[in-house]
């Protein structure tokens, strides 16, 4: 049995059952009733499931991950020092906007493994950046008053380096 997923733009993606099982929302839509009621709601394959908050490019990227993990179990919970597989880190990349879109979509679609991977990706991108770099990356507006800047300067002198990096 295969399921048709419809993205925000209306593009259709045909996925098989093991791939669709990785997406929590789709699994509940298509097979959840099978478990609880004894019969499947989505018996008509041509109907499709509309995912209104996910664009085509992000959905195709997410389906690559689901395709890769259709046979094996992804990392869902564990130690923070545990390394993700190399394929995962290459998949998530270092593009912040892309990772944020994947994170948002993974939260919406209930994919815990991909959510953790996206969080790890963001933490890796933020690793080793100074405050101004983080602000540029995430679009944060600095709203410290002059008094607070002086306080922070007194605290550990970090602000001085931040304003005049040598």
């Amino acid at each position, binding site marked *: 049995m295969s399921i048709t997923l419809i993205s925000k733009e209306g593009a259709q993606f045909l996925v098989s059952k093991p791939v669709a099982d990785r997406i929590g929302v789709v699994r509940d839509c298509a097979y959840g009733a099978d478990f609880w009621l004894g019969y499947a709601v989505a018996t008509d394959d041509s109907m499709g499931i509309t995912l209104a908050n996910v664009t085509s490019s992000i959905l195709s990227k997410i389906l690559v991950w689901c395709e890769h993990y259709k046979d094996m179990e992804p990392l869902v919970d564990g130690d*923070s*020092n545990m390394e993700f597989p190399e394929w995962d880190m290459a998949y998530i990349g270092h593009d912040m906007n892309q990772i944020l879109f994947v*994170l948002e979509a993974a*939260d919406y679609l209930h994919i815990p493994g991909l*959510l*953790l991977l996206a*969080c*790890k990706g*963001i*933490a*890796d991108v*933020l*690793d*080793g*950046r*100074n*405050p101004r770099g*983080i*602000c540029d990356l*995430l*679009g*944060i*507006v*600095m*709203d*410290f008053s002059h008094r*607070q800047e002086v306080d*922070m300067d007194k*605290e*550990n*002198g*970090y*602000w*001085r*380096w*931040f304003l005049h*990096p*040598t």
Partner: protein
Amino acid sequence: SAQKRGRKRKCPTPSSDLPEAQQATRPKKRKLTRVIKWLEETPTDIMLEIMFYMKPIDILNLSYTSKSIRASLAAPEAKHIWVQARMNVPGLPPLPPDMSEWVYAAFVFQELCQVCYLLCKSQDWN
């Protein structure tokens, strides 16, 4: 001396007449600015999950980005974030009792001289 023109606006109750406690609680005027509150807009569980993988220096850098993030990370409720961040660095000595998490992270991880407050690239612990 130039004489002031116009009628001087009178304060209905002079501040000197008010009791001290009331003076302290009088709200101050603040400039309203629109701020993108990234931390507030992101769900808390996702934010905690991101910080779960971060090192103390990254959380310290994050706290220098905006007021709201700084207030959230400096709060006593955020101690578990710092504790988890310390656990992400293998072999780090435990927190000394006379230092706060904030100061400890700055002391150990900032490449900054504690005497002249200048950036030092090389750290010679010996």
